[in-house]
């Protein structure tokens, strides 16, 4: 056992932890905006996957990072609007709608990947661009802290900035007030002329853009290539983080870090002599466990109030 601890309390592990936390933070923040408007977006998994592929393709065809970024975000928006249209306008149940989006995305990405590269597994055969890593002046020279916090990908730092942007958006701006009102009591919002459906469209789009960033992080930062089904449930883990953080940006940020811890741990454990399947299973088992512990805790605090 001590071996594990020496791995965990290493600079490498903390660095890895932040690396694997980034996509979950980004997507979970998106889920917060959506949830606050009263929509649980179960199509996040598919949205991430689509953006992960189209980001790579954009940078390949456009021969640069910017076209990749633009196409990635645009594709995520298109998928989100599709979800929004079917859920909000055609009144499709959000679970079914989300599942449909995920099924569609899984097929479409492989189909397009094969059309472009001739292969169904990864995009390794085409040259795509990645988001750069950033060394932060001063911070990078501090021992240990600098090694852990500096040198991360641009999107990682962007995720931290976006945490505060989302907080500002939700709690300080008119749009945020409207999103919260629509989510808590849509009839009240409607009665003062706030277009509920339009506000939800906007919230789902914001969520889509954030999920797009999370997806692109996987194929253009975490790894330099797209691989089929590479999101591997991260969209759902982000939803779990959003639920566990009670759709509060700070709480969700912490929950995302908790789930990412196990993801990071599974990376470390691969070195130890534990069957690979158990290591791979860990982030999912941890999510079930995390959600359960959170729910038990919530049930107990409700009970305590009673007595």
């Amino acid at each position, binding site marked *: 056992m001590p071996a594990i601890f020496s791995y965990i309390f290493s600079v490498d592990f903390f660095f890895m932890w932040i690396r694997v936390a980034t996509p979950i933070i980004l997507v979970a923040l998106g889920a917060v905006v959506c949830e606050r408007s009263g929509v649980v977006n179960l199509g996040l998994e598919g949205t991430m996957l689509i953006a992960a592929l189209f980001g790579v393709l954009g940078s390949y065809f456009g021969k640069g990072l910017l076209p990749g970024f633009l196409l990635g975000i645009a594709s995520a928006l298109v998928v989100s609007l599709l979800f929004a249209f079917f859920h909000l306008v055609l009144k499709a149940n959000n679970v079914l709608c989300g599942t449909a989006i995920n099924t569609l995305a899984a097929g479409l990405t492989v189909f397009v990947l094969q059309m472009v590269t001739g292969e169904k597994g990864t995009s390794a055969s085409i040259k795509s661009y990645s988001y750069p890593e950033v060394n932060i002046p001063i911070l990078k020279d501090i021992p240990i802290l600098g090694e852990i916090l500096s040198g991360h990908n641009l999107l990682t730092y962007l995720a931290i900035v976006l945490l505060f942007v989302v907080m500002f958006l939700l709690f300080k701006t008119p749009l945020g007030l409207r999103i919260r009102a629509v989510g808590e009591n849509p009839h009240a919002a409607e009665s003062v002329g706030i*277009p509920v459906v339009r506000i939800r469209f906007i919230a789902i789009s914001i969520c889509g853009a954030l999920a797009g960033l999370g997806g692109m992080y996987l194929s253009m930062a975490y790894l330099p290539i797209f691989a089929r089904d590479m999101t591997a449930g991260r969209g759902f883990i982000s939803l779990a983080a959003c639920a566990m953080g009670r759709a509060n940006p700070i709480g969700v940020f912490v929950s995302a870090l908790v789930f990412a811890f196990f993801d990071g741990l599974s990376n470390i454990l691969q070195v130890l002599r534990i069957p690979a399947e158990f290591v791979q299973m860990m982030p999912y088992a941890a999510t079930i466990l995390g959600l359960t512990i959170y729910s038990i805790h919530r049930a107990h605090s409700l009970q305590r109030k009673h007595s």
Partner: protein
Amino acid sequence: MTETQEALRLEGITKVYPNGVIANKDINFSVNVGEIHALSGENGAGKTTLMKILFGEEKPTAGEIFIDGDKVNIQNPSDAIRLGIGLVHQHFMLVPSLTVTENLILGIEPVKGLRIDERKARDQVSEISKKYHLIVDPDAKIQDLTVGQKQKVEILKTLLRGVRILILDEPTAVLTPQETKELFYELKLLRSAGYTIIFISHKLNEVKELCDRITIIRHGQTMGVFDVSSVSEEEISRLMVGRAVKLKVEKEAANPGAAAIRVRGLTILDDSGKPKVKNVSFTARRGEIFGVAGVEGNGQSQLTDAITGLGGYQSGSIEINGLNISGKSVREIREHKLSHIPEDRMKTGIAPRLSIENNVIADKIFRKDFNRFGFLNLSKIAAYGLEMVNRFRVSCKSAQVHINSLSGGNIQKVVLARELSSDPDVIIANQPTRGVDVGATEFIRQELVGMRNQGKTVFLISSDLGEILGLSDSLIVLYEGEITAYFPDASSVTEEELGRYMLGVEKQSDAEIRRAVHE
């Protein structure tokens, strides 16, 4: 008023709902500037639908709307607000976790740069609330306000949006008399400031006191417009109902027998630990209608939930026919011959997408008639469904149609059919005639009296004073979770007297209240 000017006119409004119900049929309605105009009609006559159309929440199937003589097209609430129409809903349209200010500025937020200008928002709010004597704490959260305060916020909401025509949908239904008085004062103030007010109500005394003119609708059609001063309450009620309202229910004197429901020292706390029912003790006996009077939200729901096994309680005891129900399931309690007509039939009383016959057997599927070793006896169920539909005069095409294709009154009859046909000894009837048409109301009341005549116990909760006084043999009054009065003979009580106890103005002595226990 020297000259009357028309503020609003609705012409030929017809509304057919997706389920085929015709709510409004060729309605004409007109209101003058600076008047308080009553819109009266029974529950389900189509008042609320008409106002929702005016406010853009529903689209009319046919008809036209004119404001200040100009034809307008109202697609949604924003159109209505822009045209100067504001609606104060019966169920408040407020966001509980947001503050008063946040609720008021929603949609018209003053901004400074990207963010909401919080100071300016507060200033706007306190200015308008002072101007019309509608005083509320701008920083309080809605969830912490009283009903009366919430209503003030609702009215402020419309005023802040520059509304000139104010619609109030049964605003006094949830208010105490004091709050009602305050509201009338505020409304009269608004009238003198030149506002036009549409006051939806079926409380004739209030209409008499407050309004200038009245439009009456019945079964979705206009029955006429009158000056309130020149028409009597008798006439209004005749037009509303089609015949004179018979408030007194004909029944013989009760002959109460043994105890059927024994409640002792019952205390119920809500989720946040606040007591909703406080140390309540009483006995309801066989062969009587035992009434529970009170303004809504004074513990009636919690009390019924506890007695029927749907909700828990913290201390005390409840016995149904000698069975202590502590730890017993709903099914066990029901098998002890308890029936329950729930407060909210749509939420609690039916499975909307199942057929009528499937709905009437829901409490009986464990019985041998319908269930042989886990298999359903479909032909018996069908026969039973048909029998119920006929006996309780449910108007429907067949017992196989989805129950949500029926009207409110017919749905309530199905609920009644299920509950009364299971051979109960104790019937818990919570608001049994709410939102039900006159015919069905009378039918339901007669059935309840019939049950009591057969020696059964009817436990009646109703916020309709006429109903509670007319039907009950004895009654208790609940105020803030406590019994404030017990009347062994309900027929000797006047509405005024009851009102004083309901509002907590008076309370009987402990010894008098103790009589409800019958020991």
